[in-house]
């Protein structure tokens, strides 16, 4: 009954989607963990990265330039947002932070719609990664295979930044206790700006590298944002390893369910989230007290 070739290829799809979700969710979760702000504009930043990359590709024809532009633009938007708006909201209630990032998300989406219209844009994969690759037991689109590698590299890079550098140590300390970090004589605001930038860059990077798989449109970030929330709830808010694990779990659930009935993929994702909430309220790798 089960077509095993199909099953394995869906598992691969799950890995690709999972890696992507892991990357975007990591961005969201380190921002939340460090700054205490849930960025509802994160999906829009994913979309902005895609558009910036698409624009760069349209002018230069180079995929590499597109990826770099998308990531840097994501970072730029993140840093600017933190400096101009978010900074004034640290002392305000969580609800206000949600409202303002939600509003910013709308503005980002509508600005893009204003300049580029509602029709979706496609960025083709780079020349060497077109077509399909025989894997012995199945054929799989080459770019998707490459994407798995690209995102894995990005995740490892993020890991190295967070766990092997001085700045990463400060960020992780900030996740535990940002007041303490501040009183150690480290300019915590500079760290906040940097973290927001890195988090947004992760979203922007994901936005452009995903563009050859799913074409980009102004509201492409909305669905991604919701999936990211599920990932973070499953993995545990504020936890980088949790976001990675949650990403892969979510990716596989969506892909494997799609094989049987795509309509239920979202519902299964929700069921998984509910199960986690009931059995481990703080997420698979989360710790108590981080709200």
């Amino acid at each position, binding site marked *: 009954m089960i077509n095993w070739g199909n099953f394995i290829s869906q598992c691969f799809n799950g890995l690709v989607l999972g890696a992507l979700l892991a990357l975007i969710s990591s961005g969201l979760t380190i921002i939340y963990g460090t700054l205490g702000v849930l960025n509802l504009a994160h999906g829009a930043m994913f979309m902005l990265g895609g558009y910036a990359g698409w624009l760069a590709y349209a002018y230069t024809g180079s995929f590499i330039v597109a990826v770099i532009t998308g990531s840097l633009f994501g970072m730029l938007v993140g840093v600017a947002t933190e400096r101009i708006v978010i900074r004034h909201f640290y002392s*305000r209630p969580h609800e206000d932070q949600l409202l303002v990032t939600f*509003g910013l998300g709308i503005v980002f989406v509508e600005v893009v719609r204003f300049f580029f219209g509602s029709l979706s844009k496609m960025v083709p994969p780079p020349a060497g990664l077109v077509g399909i690759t025989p894997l012995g037991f199945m054929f799989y689109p080459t770019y998707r295979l490459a994407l798995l590698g690209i995102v894995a590299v990005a995740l490892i890079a993020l890991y190295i930044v967070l766990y092997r550098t001085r700045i990463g140590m400060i960020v992780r300390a900030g996740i535990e206790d940002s007041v303490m970090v501040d009183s150690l004589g480290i300019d915590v605001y500079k760290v906040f700006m940097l973290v927001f930038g890195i988090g947004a860059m992760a979203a922007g990077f994901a936005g452009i590298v995903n563009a050859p798989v799913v074409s980009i449109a102004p509201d492409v970030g909305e669905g991604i944002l919701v999936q990211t929330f599920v990932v973070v709830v499953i993995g545990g*808010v504020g936890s980088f390893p949790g976001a990675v694990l949650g990403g892969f779990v979510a990716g596989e659930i969506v892909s494997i369910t799609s094989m049987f009935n795509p309509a*239920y993929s979202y519902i299964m994702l929700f069921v998984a989230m509910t199960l986690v909430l009931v059995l481990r309220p703080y997420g698979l790798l989360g710790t108590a007290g981080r709200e």
Partner: protein
Amino acid sequence: MRSQRPFLIEALTAIGLIAAPFVLPYLAFTPTTMSRIVVWGLFGIGFDILFGFTGLLSFGQSAFYGTGGMVAAYLLIRMGFPSVVLAVIIGMIVAAVVGYLIGLIALRRTGIYFAMITVAIAEVFYFVEFNPLAEYTGGENGLPGVPTPKLPLGFTTIHFDTDWKLYAFFGFWYFIGIVIALRIVRSPVGVIFSAIRDNPLRAAAVGHNVHGYKLTAFVIAAAYAGFAGGLLGVLQGFMPPEAFTFDTSGQLVIQTAIGGAGTLFGPLLGATVWLYLSDFFQNTLHLGATWKLVLGVVFVLLVCFLRRGLIGGIKDLYELVVRPAPKDAAAAASPGAAGASGKTSGEIRVAAPTPRRPRAADTISGPILEAIDLTKRYDGLIANSDINFSVRSGEVRGIIGPNGAGKTTFFRMLTCEVPPTSGKITFEGHDITGKSVTDVCQLGLTKSYQVNQLFTRLTVRQNLTISALAERRGKFRLDLFKHIRKIRGLTEQVEHTLDLVNLTGRADVPVSALAYGEKRRLEIGLALASSPSLLLLDEPLAGMSPSERAETVKLLKSIAHGRTMVVIDHDMDSLFEVVERITVLQEGRVLVEGTPEEIKSNTAVQEAYLGGVVAA
């Protein structure tokens, strides 16, 4: 909400709804736009109770809006239901039941988690509507053919078949909705909602079932959403699947924030602004899709600069113009307060203990509280070990000990904020080990906190009312339609506590405007207002100036009369004045226990405080 004019707001709402058709068309409002505004406003009333009053920001209200609407539309179109109103009400009930089930999941967590979970759940409803249930909901086509309502009067039938008649129909239901909501927010439950918004931990600690009340607010919001969803179908003549989208939830949040949360009317005002501007931008200025960009920018600016929405802004402006010097008013009030304290400074009032609910254990003699072999470990760290401690009824006990002796941990175990690693606590003969802090407070054991835990956005009187309510009503009761003034003995209890902690002259001042010493007294008042049979005070004198200390010691002496109290403090001279016996903790153990004189002359205590090595 002035007490002397009880139905003023209701009357003004009715006048506003009736006057609108005679005024707003001159501003280019169409009857359909006005109907849409009213339906959004009704949807928003429930959301405002959830967000503005209870502090729970949900981004998933579309789930209930859509559910109520689809159920009503299905009943009317596919089942041939005769009555529109009945169908809409059934839709509301279904939405409320769904809200209850979803609330059980979403309310497992608070804050950010809650917001994310509601988004995710609403998204699932959208998918369910589109796919598995498409046969019933029409999938992406929705359900066309919702009939307009008819009202049979016997001799004739009113058919709401024109735009203006429909407006009258929706306006009527908005009015009903606002009347019910006003009753809810004026009920004890409404006050407890505000308490949960301001400080959920303290709301639980004074004896309210916080989870139960949150779930109540969630179900109320779902019911309003369901009802409004049903009306949406009637308004459009068809039930659109778009009701289920994230955009719907988002628009509701935006409109409420624009109008002003926590006002009940904010969503209506927000909807007026939002829908009017979107019509204006699209139809008059022909901005096309850009209207949403403009409105998005407006919204961001509003959140940044007008924190409490338009209604909040209008209120601030009103106070600026009409009452130009609120500071003078405060200054005028404080001499009164000073006078009140001056009056009492001469003699110590012997305050009668607050009349309280008779409790089963009142007749039991022997220790009121007993802790046996109480131990608390945090991983390797032993905070308390094998503490045996008992307090007689009517006793006033002090606990002292150097920093890190485990005093606060010990208190937290007694009030069941943290469970002990091992050991047992009995209170009035009940084993309370492992109970919740709420249940223990209901039994009559409560504490005042070392760091103030107040309801900061409320007034002194409201703070004490919240605490007294828990004692009067128990931990959970759904008296949604009972006016708070009708609770027997509540006013007396609040007034009495105000008098006791010497804040009568400051009763209607918001907590944020109190001086530190006043806040400390209110902190003690919050514990007192629940008429505990055993009161624990965690460093009541911490951080006070010498004069505030003297004042508070006097207060402690007056409340000690006829009460059982346990007091932690570092100020030994003050403590010795108040208490009869003292327990000294050191390194998590009981070092010694005795009268103040015995403690003063005890060499082990002196060594502990002077840092000498205690011989084992």
